[in-house]
């Protein structure tokens, strides 16, 4: 499945707006440094991303995530992968 270019970034922006992050969010925005998300807020971001995109981020996916662009890449990889982690129902990847 192909994903429209701004679909994921817009989704992430939406999540961050919901989290009351007021900064401008671009692909090169640094999650810790620019957004100042502490560990608790990062858990929240990860959970919201998983719920919205119906993906399950594996710990090794999260390994290199420093910027919003990195996060976007990981989500795109999951959405593009054919199979169980597509646009299925809630928490299809939870098993």
């Amino acid at each position, binding site marked *: 499945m192909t994903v429209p270019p701004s679909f994921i970034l817009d989704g992430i922006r939406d999540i961050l707006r919901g989290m*009351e992050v*007021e900064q401008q969010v671009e692909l090169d925005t*640094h*999650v*810790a*440094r*620019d*957004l*100042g*998300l*502490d*560990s*608790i*807020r*990062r*858990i*929240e*971001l*990860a*959970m*919201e991303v998983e*719920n919205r995109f119906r993906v399950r*981020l*594996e*710990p*090794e996916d*999260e*390994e290199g*995530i420093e910027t919003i662009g990195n*996060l976007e890449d990981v989500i795109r990889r999951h959405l593009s992968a054919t199979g169980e982690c597509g646009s299925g129902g*809630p*928490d299809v990847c*939870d098993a």
Partner: protein
Amino acid sequence: MPDETLGRLLERAAGSGKGVRFVDRNETARFYGYAELLDRARRTGAGLARLGVRPADRVAIILPTGPDFYDAFFGAVLIGAVPAPLYPPVRLGRLREYRAQTAALLRGCGARVVVTDGRVARVTGRAVAEAEPPLGLATVGDLRALGGGPRGGLIGVPDPRAAALIQHSSGTTGRPRPIRVTHRAVIANLNAIRARLLAVFPDDAEREHAAVSWLPLYHDMGLIGCVLTAMAHPADLTLIPPELFVARPGVWLRAISRYRATVSGAPNFAYSYCADRISDEEIEGLDLSTWLVALNGAEPVTAGAMDRFARRFGPCGLRPEALTPVYGLAEATLAVTFSDPESRPRQVSLDRDALAREGVARPTASGGATLISVGRPLPGIRLRIAPETGSRGAPGGEEVLGRVLVSGPSMFDGYDDDDPLGEGPAPPGPDGPWFDTGDTGFLLDGELYLYGRARDVLVLRGCKYAPHPVEEALDDVEGVRTGCVAAIGVPLHEGEEERLVVLAERARGRPPRDDAALAAQAVRAVAERTDLVCGRVLILEPGTLPRTSSGKIRRAEARRRYTQGQLSPPARRQGMALIGEAVGSGLAVARMRRRRRGPATQGDSS
């Protein structure tokens, strides 16, 4: 029952029909009776034994909240091995630091094997490889398969004086240390907790205790206070993964409501987090009237958090008396004092000057500092205040501030790492072996009030952090005087929880006009290098921070002066040199508060 062990607790619970309910992110729950958990643990234990784990071997456990954790923990216990739960990987965080920390913890406790699941194994693999536990890494699934079919009679009946588990605490330096507690100590603490709770609410046919917790299972309050206390009772326990609570705090209160919980606890921050973050729609239909004891521990208790929580959830049937401040530490297994769960937490108003300058607790009618009682020692636990050296005795009617010392049957047995610099488990004193908690406080009418701490640990949202990594994050910030930084935990406003405050001296010869930019850079550097967000950064004149004779920064003294408004540069005395101040990303808390829909938090004590 003097020869009780953790294995026997599970065996006895297995006959009760009670068990543990695990809530998933859809808020559906799966129930496992203690009998089933015993059966699974026996198989896992057999697997561990077959792998080569022997009695007294340390078994590191890195698992999220779930039945696997019980399998691994009690599997180890049933063969007389010693479980050492460690924290699972952080989310969107610094995995490199996580791995280094985990490798250090594995080496520190001398883990013989690491038990985890497939998901965690893929990240912890390298940490494990670095620490080289002799038996490597095993998943719970592997161990159950290795253990074969159900079997009984595996219990090696360890000596109650033998080590029961290893828990980690930051001790007095902030560096996590493996704390060894015996079966006897754990059982003593569980009995003390239950005695206090049951004395207040006698067990009768009318009332069935049930507990709910979202606390991580590698944390003493989650493991001892929830998992083991519920099992000892035995009572049904509902467990929520901590990250689910963080993302959706309403889950916690809904579980209490749904499963008619009588006991549930959390660190102070969770109470304000819920008050601020749970929407009016979510509150509708919540029934918190069964909640008799809402324990508040693991970080300094604030009046602000408790008042907001009580106001916000009073309409859901929450009894204001339910809020129960407690105090404990991993070196005492867990619990040391409980306030009275039947009445509102006691508060005193004390003269600020007397507290800060004379070290005495002098009640005052108005304008004083409000301190909250964390209650009386649990049965069997002894507590005394050792006045700081140099402080003079106070006349009658006033209590002297001092170090909080603890003693009793639930004290730990020793640290598992053999660090010659480490403090001993229980330094002998005139009245027996007393452990210096590093906290300072005083006793008033037999109740303990905490006021600061002598140690440098940062306590933020119930977690303890060492100050050094934060201070070192500023090493590369040009314009900050290298090494002249103190990271301290203090409330930004009275009655609120502690936030990270960084005090940094400006490099010599640098103009004060750049201070604001410097502070902003410092905020970013800390965020980038640690998992922490600064509540405030203050740029100070060179030489402002108090130092020891050998030139080391005295954090506790810096903290005291900061809170008293006495941080002054050395030469000119001009009050606080608070020129550049960046509250920076610390605004997150203020923002969160706004997120709550519905009535504003009127009368907020801050």
